[in-house]
């Protein structure tokens, strides 16, 4: 637990709440069963804030999905939640004895290390043979138990990592883009599996999605990040929209959901911010003191993308062109 320089901003959340009870930030909705709570968390590297003022919690049985453009601080936020990174301001409160299962975004295992899928399972703790087999068969890779991890395809490796994380029966499962490298039907299957794990074990799940608009249908809270929390809310089941249903297919429509962004501001390509009242500023919230001039700055990490396309910060800009063939590759 880290409590560096605690700033508890009592001002109303700088984020427009969309239906959820988030008036005092996320902690308001966390009861005693919160597994992890972030309060006004900020992470600073090389004099720049990667994220700031991040406020949310994950409770038992809850699925929280983080979305946002590249460099928006999704992974940073997730790593802070589980203690891999220490917050430079604000604090992270973890339930004592919290057992975490973590699937990182990137993992390269050196060829010199002989590691079978089976051996990978017991990397951080001992497991019974039956538990290993169960985790492997639930992710559909039982037949690969003896294979070396370096010989797996991207999708197979991703499943192996997920199997490893769930086999240890964590209280909190943190999945950083778990469906990367997995084809569309595999993606649906994995989301289905994540739902099953949640329902069966009641663990909390913090999921980072590569997609800005389509998230797992079972998500309880979507948090859109872009250096800060841009907006948060609940997704709307795809199955409620005939148009989406046609595109994704009936099975997928059960699993996927659409998230309609509800922003009071738009991040422009030049880094400036267009507010709902039509005013232009260099930062998001001129009054809360959070966002200095360089916040969405002219530096590479944030301004490298074109906001209206990859970020969808404008209202309800639901883009379907991501489904065109060949466009399904991750950024």
């Amino acid at each position, binding site marked *: 637990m880290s409590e560096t320089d605690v700033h508890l901003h009592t001002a109303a959340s700088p984020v427009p709440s969309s239906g959820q009870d988030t008036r005092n930030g996320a902690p308001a909705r966390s009861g005693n069963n919160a597994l992890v709570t972030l309060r006004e968390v900020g992470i600073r590297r090389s004099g720049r804030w990667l994220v700031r003022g991040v406020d949310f919690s994950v409770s038992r049985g809850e699925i929280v999905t983080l979305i946002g453009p590249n460099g928006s601080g999704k992974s940073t936020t997730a790593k802070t939640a589980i203690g891999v990174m220490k917050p430079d301001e604000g604090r992270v409160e973890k339930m004592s004895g919290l057992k*975490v299962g973590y699937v990182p975004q990137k993992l390269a295992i050196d060829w*010199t*290390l002989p590691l079978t899928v089976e051996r990978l399972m017991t*990397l*951080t703790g001992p497991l019974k043979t039956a538990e290993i087999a169960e985790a492997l068969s639930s992710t559909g890779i039982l037949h690969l138990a003896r294979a070396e991890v370096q010989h797996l395809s991207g999708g197979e490796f991703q499943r192996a990592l997920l199997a490893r994380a769930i086999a240890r029966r964590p209280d909190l499962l943190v999945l950083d883009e778990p469906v990367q490298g997995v084809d569309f039907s595999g993606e649906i299957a994995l989301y289905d599996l994540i739902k099953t794990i949640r329902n069966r074990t009641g663990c909390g799940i913090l999921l980072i999605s590569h997609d800005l608009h389509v998230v797992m249908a079972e998500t309880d809270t979507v948090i859109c990040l872009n250096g800060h929390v841009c907006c948060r809310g609940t997704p709307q089941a795809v199955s409620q929209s005939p148009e989406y249903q046609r595109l994704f297919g009936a099975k997928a429509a059960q699993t996927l959901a659409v998230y309609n962004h509800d922003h009071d501001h738009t991040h422009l390509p030049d880094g400036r911010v267009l507010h709902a009242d039509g005013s232009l500023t260099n930062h998001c919230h001129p009054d809360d003191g959070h966002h200095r001039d360089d916040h969405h700055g002219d530096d590479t990490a944030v301004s490298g993308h074109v906001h209206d396309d990859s970020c969808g910060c404008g209202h309800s800009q639901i883009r379907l062109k991501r489904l065109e063939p060949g466009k399904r590759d991750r950024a």
Partner: protein
Amino acid sequence: MLDDFFIRALIAGVGLAITVGPLGCFVVWRRMAYFGDTMAHSALLGVALSLLLDLNLMVSVFIVAAMVSLLLLALQKRGGLSTDALLGILSHSSLSIGLVIVAFMTWVRIDLVGFLFGDILAVSEADIDIVWGGGILVLMALVMLWRPLLASTVNPEIAEAEGLHPERSRLFFMLLMALVIAIAMKIVGILLITSLLIIPAATARRFSASPEIMAVFASLIGAVSVVGGLFGSLHFDTPSGPSIVVAALVIFVLSLLPIGRRSRDGTPFSPPGGHH
């Protein structure tokens, strides 16, 4: 028949090879070959300080090697220069400072070649006790540290998230390395320690299905190299330390030959395919 000194060399050398095998695997897995080299080079500074301050040689070498690794950690945290460049600076400057200090001490005459390349034929019974005693200590520590060390080798973030304290295991690993260097210096010498760490481990990779098997194989291959090298040095009248390294190299080269190859991917040292 074999002389006593030769038997002592065999016992000490085999003990050392068994100790460094598993540690060498971690050096290979963590891509720390240059790091091992740096710590080994700093041992000469340890030798110089032990002479200057009249300290026990092994204690002095251990302390200096440990300090150098801590210094590296501190410099890495500070940012700026790459680890590679930092290692280059630490490695050769500590070696040179050691040589300069020795040169100033005109009243001591030391066998520099013995320190650089080892003098395994001069090991005493006390040295054997230290090699085996220290070796058992290192191996026991490694067994206890195995899971967190392996987990943080695969991914420090997973290890941290799942409560295995990768920073702590890294620190322990560095201390074990310093200890092994202090033990090994007399046998294979400062300049050749890294090869005994790396070559047997690299040879073992192809024949191993798990990290644990690779660690055991590395020990065995190292032991065979020591025995082969020592007999070779006796037979051809060559220096013992380099002969051991040459024997290890011969086994490594033989292991590359496509005889009875079980590896599924083309060349043994092809980079991993598949995931990214």
